[in-house]
């Protein structure tokens, strides 16, 4: 297939997705143009709004970075949401221990490490279940997501309850000294969040392209048995992929607790679907790590921008999720069509057996 036809197909796919969204909006009685403008304005209408997009970008980047590793190894780490939550729990625990005794920078740093450990442990558990318990990581991950979510509810209502308040709205918010500082006053996003997220993606990208670790993960993902016989310690690498993915998810949990415009507390559903969004990003990037950077930003923009729909057009903000889902579906369908077309052309290159 020619390059032009290839790109034409991709653009047609995205066009089809947008057309579907337009039809849905029209069916809801809303002017599509107005809805798209609201999303656009909500995302980039002002520096402050764009800052919000960036705060959503960081956790998606971190999750996508981790998922690139597990996807390369052929593992569906659906448990990423729970790993984000577990990271946030460890972060909160560490901050509660250190906030009064250590300087804020040290407390934040230790909290980040704690988040990494929490996420990694939770992911490693999914890995252990898969490797030694014969539990598929999709089911194990779903179960562990549930447990992590229940654990937050327990902590918020029980041991970490706010004095005098009996609600699930969250733990006692941390004081501003434990917030990541904004880039500029009024631009509520921290340079740290952005840099950590981008660094994670870039490092993963380099690891997949240039290191034995990345090569071996890919080998495992494409053929576990052959990889093992070619000398790859498959179990160790799969566990490592899980743990590293969980570590990055845990770091996303850290961003969600201490980020400039976060709620600075632990609350149920703190993962906010960022893990699942990461899965969509990686599906869309089709394992090309660098593409996940713009795609994450785009998805973050849709997520944040669609909040305006609720405020100004009496539409539910979940429309953003509909748009994201349709885009991924469109791209997957286009991928299917491309591989069918490619099968025809590869027949030309493959010699007869």
């Amino acid at each position, binding site marked *: 297939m020619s390059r032009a036809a290839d790109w034409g197909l991709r653009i047609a796919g995205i066009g089809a997705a947008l057309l579907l969204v337009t039809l849905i909006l029209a069916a809801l009685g809303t002017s599509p143009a107005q809805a798209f403008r609201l999303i656009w304005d909500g995302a980039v209408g002002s520096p402050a709004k764009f800052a919000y997009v960036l705060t959503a970008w960081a956790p998606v980047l971190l999750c996508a970075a981790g998922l690139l590793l597990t996807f390369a190894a052929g593992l569906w780490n659906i448990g990423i949401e729970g790993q984000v939550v577990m990271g946030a729990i460890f972060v909160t625990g560490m901050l509660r221990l250190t906030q009064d005794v250590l300087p804020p920078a040290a407390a934040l740093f230790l909290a980040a490490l704690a988040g990494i450990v929490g996420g990694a442990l939770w992911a490693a558990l999914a890995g252990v279940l898969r490797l030694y318990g014969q539990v598929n990581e999709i089911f194990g991950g779903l179960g562990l997501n549930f447990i992590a979510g229940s654990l937050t509810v327990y902590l918020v209502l029980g041991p970490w309850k706010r004095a005098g308040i009996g609600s699930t709205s969250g733990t006692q918010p941390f004081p501003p000294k434990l917030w990541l500082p904004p880039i500029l006053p009024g631009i509520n996003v921290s340079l740290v969040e952005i840099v950590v997220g981008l660094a994670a993606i870039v490092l993963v990208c380099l690891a997949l392209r240039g290191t034995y670790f990345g090569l071996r993960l890919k*080998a495992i993902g494409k053929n576990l048995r052959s990889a093992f016989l070619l000398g790859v310690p498959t179990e160790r690498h799969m566990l490592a992929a899980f743990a590293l993915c969980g570590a990055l998810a845990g770091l996303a949990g850290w961003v969600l607790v201490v980020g400039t415009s976060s709620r600075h507390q632990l609350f149920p559903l703190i993962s906010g679907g960022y893990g699942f969004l990461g899965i969509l990003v990686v599906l869309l990037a089709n394992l090309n790590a660098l593409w996940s950077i713009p795609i994450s930003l785009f998805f973050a923009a849709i997520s944040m921008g669609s909040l305006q729909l609720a405020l100004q057009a009496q539409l539910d903000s979940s429309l953003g999720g509909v748009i994201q889902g349709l885009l991924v579906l469109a791209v997957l369908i286009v991928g299917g069509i491309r591989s069918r077309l490619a099968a025809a052309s590869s027949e030309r290159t493959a010699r007869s057996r």
Partner: protein
Amino acid sequence: MRVELREIHKRFGSVHANNGITLKVTPGTIHGLLGENGAGKSTLMKILNGFIAADSGEILLDGKPVTMTSPAQAVALGVGMLYQDPLDFPALTVLDNFVLGCSPALVPDRRRARRDLRDLCSQFDFTLDPDAHVSDLSIGERQQLEIVRLLWLGARTLVLDEPTTAISAQQRDKLFVALRKLAEGGKSVIFVSHKLEEVETLCDEVTVLSRGRVTGHAQQPYSTEKLVQMMFGQDIPRVRRQVQLVTTAEPLLRLERVTVSDWRLEIRNLNLDVMPGEVIGMAGLEGSGQLLLLQACCGLRPPTSGRIWLAGKDVTGQSYHRLRAAGVAYMPAGRLEEGLIADMTLTEHLALAEYQGGFFVDWPQAAQSAARGIERYHIKGQPTSRVEELSGGNQQRTLLALLPSQLQLLLMEHPTRGLDVESAEHIWGLLLERTQQGTAIIFLSSDLDELLDRSDRILVFFGGRVSAPLNARQINVEQLGELIGGKGFGGGGADESRG
């Protein structure tokens, strides 16, 4: 059924796989299609089977031009094909596989199918248990299932693509008898092979292909020399291995009362000493225990009792990866299943196989290794070729190229399966170079000539029992064949010891 292919052309990129091939098959005959790897045999048959479309040319069945668009349609028109690797569903039962291709009705009529299956099997003296799982059958039995299935679906022409590569001599004999019966019953059989002897004994007529063209046509009785000339354009001398073994005091590999088993078979109390540089061939019906021994030696299947010594060290129970680091390599038979990684390039394979520690991949060096392997093993491909784009023979060469260069012990399943005579000769040349450096080789093969020509000693396996090592220079094909068939093992057959 009269089958006629006229002026078939098919190109894959720059390769003219079928260059104006014309083939006529008379009803009631077995027609051999002979040629080396890459001659275009499989392509031609896939065209006849509707699996791929020809660029140009005509297919006529009983004189009527037809267009095939899918294997299902080909079967409906009466052309059934057995692929080189059985395309069945191992998780399902024999009966389920049998009915799978048909069922115009919503619910298959199992009772009728069971009866038909039994009738067909008894016609050909096949013994297939309808309720057995296909995963428990040998390749030969899976072929038998495929044959009766295609006949049941109404195939009047049967195409068999290299059917004997993975089956035992006994199963091959059974297959040949069945094919004869089919031909006598008026069906046409097209028998694709690169094995001269088989074509000579089985086929009424032969068409020889080379590099995409028909290079010859012959009828019984054949002149082997002429067939070889049509195939290769020259004679290939065969040399039997003549090596004086270095007898050291210490064997490289010593098995001491080793017992190893899987769920259906057990090898009990095996003793064996293998000297450095020695080549041990393992003969026997497919699944008689050869694989158990290979797997025990490379750590994939720890023995239940007994000890294994490698170069004087007790390595019993050590993992595959530890033994691999100690210089033990295993080359599996399943190319794209357990040997190679589809969607990865030759360079990537070499980088994986030659991993020496370190963090970053040295891609230029890996590409060089790939280029070296391509040259050394005559792989038709580029360092950037993905392995699934290579032909079967070139995948086999790639497997060989991936073996570590410094080895103590090399364990191989079917080292030259799917390679033509010339390539096999080349590969064994390279393997024997290794033995001169002290590497011992243990290989299993279903090719008796290969076993006799290449081994120093031969172990014959029969239902988990192992013969004493036989000097390969003191036995001939007939004696070996009898042993494989169970003579000399005392009562009881292979089937008895299967669970």
